[in-house]
């Protein structure tokens, strides 16, 4: 059953990717990339990574699609035809993909208890998180407490990203709509 779900999700993921590569209408591409994120979120749920799936669905499927549409409203709707052929990028993609698949051959099976990730610090966190932090969701405990420095950095990245967009595009501080550039 699980295999069938995985296969269907992957098939749709690949079809969406091919459609995105072939389409010239940027509105359709933006909507399909939101669909791509939603399918990826479904795959993350199948992999039991619900926190990641949640973020992917909310950020990739939701907000970033809206941002792309917002950017699209300032641009022409059709992609320009590329001046060079598609052969070199295709070969590059196939070689990179083949290298990545070759790399997965040596990886331990999914969910294998002998995988290094399950034998190193993982069990330590699982055993210590609840008694030490009182938070049942180990992901939250690691994210906010054990790796609090990292999350502070991530929050700073989002802060800086928003400030950068505001500095480049500008935002009117008064009420009322801002028309065109300044």
């Amino acid at each position, binding site marked *: 059953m699980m295999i069938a779900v995985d296969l269907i999700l992957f098939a749709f993921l690949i079809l969406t990717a091919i459609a995105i590569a072939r389409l010239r209408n940027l*509105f359709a591409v933006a909507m399909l990339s939101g669909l791509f994120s939603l399918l990826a979120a479904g795959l993350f749920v199948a992999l039991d990574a*619900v*926190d990641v*799936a*949640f*973020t992917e669905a*909310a*950020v990739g499927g*939701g*907000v970033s699609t*809206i*941002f792309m549409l*917002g*950017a699209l*409203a*300032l641009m022409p*709707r059709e992609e320009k035809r590329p001046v060079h052929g598609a052969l070199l990028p295709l070969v590059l993609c196939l070689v990179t993909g083949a290298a990545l698949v070759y790399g997965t051959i040596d990886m331990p099976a999914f969910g294998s208890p002998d995988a290094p990730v399950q034998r190193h610090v993982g069990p330590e966190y699982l055993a210590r998180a609840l*008694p*030490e*932090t*009182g*938070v*049942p*969701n180990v*992901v*939250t*405990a690691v*994210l*906010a*407490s054990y790796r*609090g*420095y990292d*999350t*502070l950095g991530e*929050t*700073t990245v*989002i*802060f800086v*990203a*928003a*400030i950068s*967009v*505001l500095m480049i*595009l*500008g*935002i*009117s*501080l008064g*009420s*009322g*709509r*801002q*028309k*065109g*550039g300044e």
Partner: protein
Amino acid sequence: MQHHLILRVVARLLLPPIFLYALYVQWHGDYGPGGGFQAGVIFAVGFILYALINGVDALTRVVPPRALILLLAAGLLLYAGTGIATLLLGQDFLDYSALSHDAVHGQEWGILIVELGVGITVAAAMTAIFLAFAGRSASVEDKDW
């Protein structure tokens, strides 16, 4: 959007559950999937939906851009300030055990506070980025899509 009656009605019905769900994700992140990042994004989505239906001007009346920029910084300062507070209470930076008489209790409080900081910054950042885009473009007619 003025003549899209169905879209307007459905969006108006959806807005309260979206904000309620964002709050649930924010405060329930300790027990289930979610936390500040996801809650902030969902909160921002509620504001963006409001702007899509009622226009950008209506949104800037609800959340003035100046308040958004203050919130953007306030969330990050809340997070970093928690670290400073734990320093002043005699622990390491961001070691929340100092926040309460009981170390485990302090950890719970610390995680809640920093997740709130993350949520505020993410929600303000997403809404501000949307306003920066939407405030620039002339309104798009339906036939243009």
